[in-house]
C-alpha cells in the first residue's frame, strides 16, 4: 500500500496536541508563573515541596487505594462474567454482551447521582422501609466505582477468552488435567493480555475520577482528580496542577509500555 503520506498530518497533530503540551506541563511544574504565560516564568521548586503536604500526598495514596480496591473487585466479578459469556452457548449471548455496554451510554454523572440518591439516609428506598445511609463511607465510593467501570474490565477479558481455541482446553482435559488445573494452566495464562488491559482500563479512570468520589463521599474524600480539578478550575494554580498531572502522565506511560508488551496491536483496548 502506498498511502504513507496520510500519516504525516497525524504526526504533526499528535506532536502539537500531546508532546508540546506535555513539555510545557513539565516546564510549568518546576516553575512559578502567572497563569499560562511565559513572561513571568521563573524556575522554582515550590510545587515539589507542596506535594509533600498532607492533603496532597494523602490524595495520591487514596487514589491508589480506592482505584486499587475497585479494580480488584472488578476483576473478581468481571473475569467470571467474561468467562461465562465467552464459553456459553446461550442463544442470546451477543445481546447479553451488548447489554453490558448499554449502561455506559447512560450519562455517567446521572449514574453517580442515582447511587448518591440511593445511599442518602432519606431516599426513595424509605417507601419500602430501607435507609442505606452509606454516603461518606468508603463502601459507597467503591460500589459506585465498580458499577461504573466494570464493563471496562469485562470487555478486554472477553475479547481474549473468545479467541482461545477450545481444542486446547479439550486437549488438556484429554491429557488428564482436572477442569480447575486446565483453567490454571491453559485458560488463565492465555487470557493474561486481556486481564492486564482490563486492570489498566479500570484502574486509571477510577483512580483519577473526581465527580464520583466527591459525590459519594459527601465531599469528604479527595482523590488526585479532585486536586487537579481544583488547581485548574478553582484556584488557577497551573504550576502545581501541572506537577500533579505530570505524576499521572508518568504512571500512564508506564502502563502503556506494559500494554505494548502484552498486546502490541491494541486488540484488547476497544
Amino acid at each position, binding site marked *: *500500500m*502506498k498511502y*504513507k503520506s*496520510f*500519516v504525516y498530518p*497525524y504526526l504533526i497533530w499528535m506532536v502539537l*496536541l*500531546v508532546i*508540546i*503540551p506535555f513539555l*510545557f*506541563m513539565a516546564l510549568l511544574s518546576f516553575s512559578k508563573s502567572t497563569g499560562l504565560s511565559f513572561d513571568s516564568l521563573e524556575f522554582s521548586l515550590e510545587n515539589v515541596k507542596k506535594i509533600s503536604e498532607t492533603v496532597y500526598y494523602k490524595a495520591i495514596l487514596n487514589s491508589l487505594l480506592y482505584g486499587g480496591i475497585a479494580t480488584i473487585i472488578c476483576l473478581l*466479578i468481571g473475569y*467470571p*462474567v467474561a*468467562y*461465562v*459469556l465467552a464459553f*456459553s452457548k446461550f*442463544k442470546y449471548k451477543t445481546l447479553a454482551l451488548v*447489554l453490558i455496554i*448499554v*449502561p*455506559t*451510554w*447512560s*450519562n455517567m*454523572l*446521572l449514574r453517580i447521582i*442515582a*447511587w448518591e*440518591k*440511593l445511599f*442518602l439516609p*432519606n*431516599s*426513595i428506598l424509605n*417507601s419500602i422501609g430501607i435507609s442505606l445511609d452509606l454516603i461518606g463511607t468508603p463502601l459507597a465510593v467503591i460500589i459506585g466505582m465498580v*458499577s461504573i467501570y466494570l464493563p471496562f474490565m*469485562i470487555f478486554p477479558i472477553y475479547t481474549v477468552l473468545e479467541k482461545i481455541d477450545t481444542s486446547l482446553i479439550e486437549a488438556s482435559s484429554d491429557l488428564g488435567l482436572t477442569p480447575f488445573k486446565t483453567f490454571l494452566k491453559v485458560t488463565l495464562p492465555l487470557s493474561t493480555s486481556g486481564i492486564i488491559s482490563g486492570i489498566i482500563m479500570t484502574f486509571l479512570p477510577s*483512580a*483519577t475520577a*473526581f*465527580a464520583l468520589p466527591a*459525590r459519594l463521599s459527601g465531599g469528604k474524600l479527595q482523590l488526585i482528580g479532585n486536586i*487537579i*480539578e481544583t488547581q485548574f*478550575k478553582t484556584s488557577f494554580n*497551573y504550576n502545581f496542577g*501541572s506537577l500533579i*498531572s505530570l505524576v*499521572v*502522565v508518568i504512571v*500512564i506511560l508506564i502502563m*502503556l509500555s506494559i*500494554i505494548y508488551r502484552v498486546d*502490541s*496491536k*491494541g486488540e484488547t483496548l*476497544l
Partner: protein
Amino acid sequence: MKKIPKVLIVVFAFALLYLPIIVIGILSFNSSQVGSNFGTITARWYTEIFANSSLSGAIVNTLIVAFVSTIISTIAGTLIAIGIYSFRNSSRNRLLLLNNFPVVNADISTAITLMIIFSLLGLRFGFTTMLLSHIFFSIPFVILSVAPRLRELDKDLLDAAIDLGCNKFQALYKVLIPSIRTGIITGGLIAFTMSIDDFVISWFNTGNGFDNFSIWIYARLGRKTFSPSAYAYNSLVTIITIAGLVIYNLKTVRRLKK
C-alpha cells in the same frame, strides 16, 4: 463451572450495572424534584425536557458536537489507519503505540494537556475547543477499529486494482474502503457514543457558556436549578437504544435459525 454460580455471578454483575439505570428511570417519574422521597408518579419531567431551554440547548450542543466530531474523526481515522498500514512492521507498531497513548491516557490528563495547548494557541474556549478535543480523543478509537480489518486484507487486492487500471485514489475508494467498511462503521459508532458521553474532557475544554449535557448536569449538582428532566431525557435514550438492540438481535437470531 456449575450452572447456578454461573447464572448468579452474571445476574449480580447485571444488577450492579442496571441498578443506577433503574433508579434514574424511577426518578424520572417521581414528582419530588430533589428525589429524596417518592412523591407521586408524574410525566411532568418528560414534557418539560424541551420547555427547559438551558437543558434542551445543552442536549442540542451535545448532538451537534457528536455528529460533527464523528464525521471528521471517522474520515480522518480511516485515512490515517490506511496510512499506518502502508508502513512496514516496526514503524507500523511504533505508530500504533503512539496511537494507543490517548486511548490508555486518563481523561483528566488528556483534558489538561488539551487545555494547556489550546490556551497557548490563544483559542477562544467554547464550541471550537470542545469540538477539537472530541475529534482528538475519537480518532484513535476509529484507527483501532479499522486496524483489524486492514490486517485481514489481502495484500494483492490493491495491486490487482491498480493493475486493472485504477489510479491510487480510485483504488482507495472503490476497493480499499468498501472492504474495510465494517471497521469504519464500528469506529464511527464508538466515536459517536464516546462524544455523547464525555464529561471530563469537555468540562476542561469548554468556556463562554457553551454547555453539553454532562456539563449542564455537573454545574447543577445539588442545586435547585437541576431539573429531573435530565433523568427523563436519559431514560428516554436508554429505552430507545435497548429496544432497538433487542429487536435487532431477535431478528438476527431468528434469521440464523432459518
